[in-house]
């Protein structure tokens, strides 16, 4: 009886866990398929048994995909890391000025800057390509880095501005009395408090630039393709088997997935900063 009564009372809880578990399985299904396909030996790859676990672990598919994607994965990392670093530094100083040294009309200027993060990039794509060709940076990773840094200005400045708005004015006033100026206040007070802000912005820009497809596909040639363009190309080809495509998709997702798994908390903050503007 007691068991039954406990069950009855706990039923909503149990139902809740069952429902959530089912939903979680549904969300994980695509990754499950990518993973088990990647781990099967070629001999076991068959559409009919695609949902079954491998009977033996092999890395045939991953190696096949790695072979094709590695140069592009390397391009992605060479492009994304400098882009994220430059973006975060620029965002930090912009955020400092726009939160603590507002000039006349600063809010209007800032709003005009923010508009830049919402525009469909198709509306600037033709002039951008012409301009990059003019300054001889089309077809280079440096050009792609420049583009990510510039179009990253709105979001990185916003995250840092909201972050610095929390640092109390009193602390800055104290620094001011001690004789620190614009640079000194940044160097001795703001910057040392900025580490969490930098982590959020670095992760955000890393993910954005890594996942970008549009800029990469119009601004680079085969040799500089980042992994997103290469993967899409691989998926469109008739020669590459579906199993290798799936292993490739997981491989291409891995860098940002790892960042998410280990630094998810900061990733979420970047997301929310983009949505909830202070």
């Amino acid at each position, binding site marked *: 009886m007691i068991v039954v009564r406990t069950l009855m009372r706990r039923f909503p809880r149990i139902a809740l866990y069952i429902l959530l578990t089912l939903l979680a399985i549904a969300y994980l299904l695509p990754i499950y398929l990518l993973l088990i396909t990647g781990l099967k030996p070629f001999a076991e790859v068959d559409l009919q048994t695609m949902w079954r676990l491998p009977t033996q672990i092999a890395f045939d598919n991953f190696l096949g995909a790695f072979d094709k994607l590695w140069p592009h994965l390397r391009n992605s990392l060479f492009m994304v890391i400098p882009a994220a670093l430059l973006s975060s530094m620029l965002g930090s100083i912009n955020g400092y000025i726009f939160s603590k040294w507002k000039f006349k009309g600063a809010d209007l200027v800032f709003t005009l800057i923010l508009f830049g993060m919402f525009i469909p990039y198709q509306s600037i794509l033709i002039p951008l390509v012409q301009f990059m060709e003019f300054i001889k940076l089309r077809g280079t990773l440096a050009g792609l880095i420049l583009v990510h840094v510039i179009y990253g200005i709105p979001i990185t400045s916003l995250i840092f501005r909201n972050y610095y708005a*929390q640092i109390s004015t009193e602390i800055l006033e104290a620094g001011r009395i001690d004789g620190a100026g614009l640079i000194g206040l940044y160097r001795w007070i703001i910057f040392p408090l900025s580490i969490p802000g930098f982590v959020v912005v670095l992760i955000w820009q890393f993910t954005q630039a890594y996942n970008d497809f549009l800029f990469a596909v119009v601004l680079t040639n085969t040799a500089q393709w980042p992994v997103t363009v290469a993967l899409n190309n691989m998926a469109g080809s008739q020669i590459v088997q*579906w199993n290798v495509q799936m292993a490739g998709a997981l491989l291409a997702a891995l860098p940002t997935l790892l960042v998410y798994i280990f630094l998810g908390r900061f990733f979420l903050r970047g997301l929310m900063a983009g949505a909830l503007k202070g």
Partner: protein
Amino acid sequence: MSAISNRSAPTASTASSARQTPRWWRGSTFTTDRILSFLIVLPSILAIAIFVYGFIGWSVRVSLSAWTKGLIPNYTYSGLDRYIALFSDRRFGIDMRNTAIFTLLFLIACLSVGLLLAILLDQHLKGEGIFRSIFLFPMAISFIVTGVAWRWLMSPATGSRISGLNLLFDQLGLDFLISRWHTTPPPWGIAFVVIPAVWQMSGFTMAMYLAGLRSISDDLREAARVDGANELQLYRFIILPQLQAVTLSAVIVLGHTSLKIFDLIVAISQNDIKLDVPAVYMWRTTFDGSNYSRGAAIGIIMLITVAVLIVPYLITSMRSQEAKL
């Protein structure tokens, strides 16, 4: 010390308090620092002025030109010809219809799934963090990867070639769920592309709603319960009305993502014109078809669509900031 203890990232509610102009700034004589501060942000302002506003202006100019073929620019003025042509262009008509269907279904699905997940997770569960991470992780993946994976999941093949979700449904005895997915005849093929998009973005909506739910005080819930409200009434009359601001923010973010949707369509459709959207048409017609003025016109129409959604939002949030000063 308050700054140090307050090191967590900003949220909408806490960010406003310290945004006032510092007292030592106003009427002070630190003119050098003031000029310096402006010089520091000037490069960023100029970069945005050129790369956003200048380039938009230049796109408008290209869209009004006769540059319809070849790589050599032809800036002969041809008025609104390209825009007029687009509105009787069959492909652009398909694009507009697809965008409308996609955006509407994507918004409804993302908001309801996100809200459902948030309410389920708000019940003080064990393992909440794990569930939250599972629902949110697709957000870290690129639309290209999502598209490549889901193209196989949504394989419409039948008979001995049956695969993906259809195969799974078949093996589980859920045959009634078997579908042609995104290859369903128009206009509903695009509706199935909403599924991977929701898979990717619903976790984000959940996170926003969860933050909103967490900001509603327990006292309020308690008070409603004391007044005899059951859980359903509590959500209907007390909690949901308080989430309207979150819904608005979510609509802004999801709406502009959806109006610009590009990579996901490229990866899933692999050139199938039935799933075409303006962003893809712009890319194809400009860089494959060398019709630069038509491409520019599509880009500008996309910009206007997004601006209708974004500009009022930006103006309101700027006004509310000024009001706080």
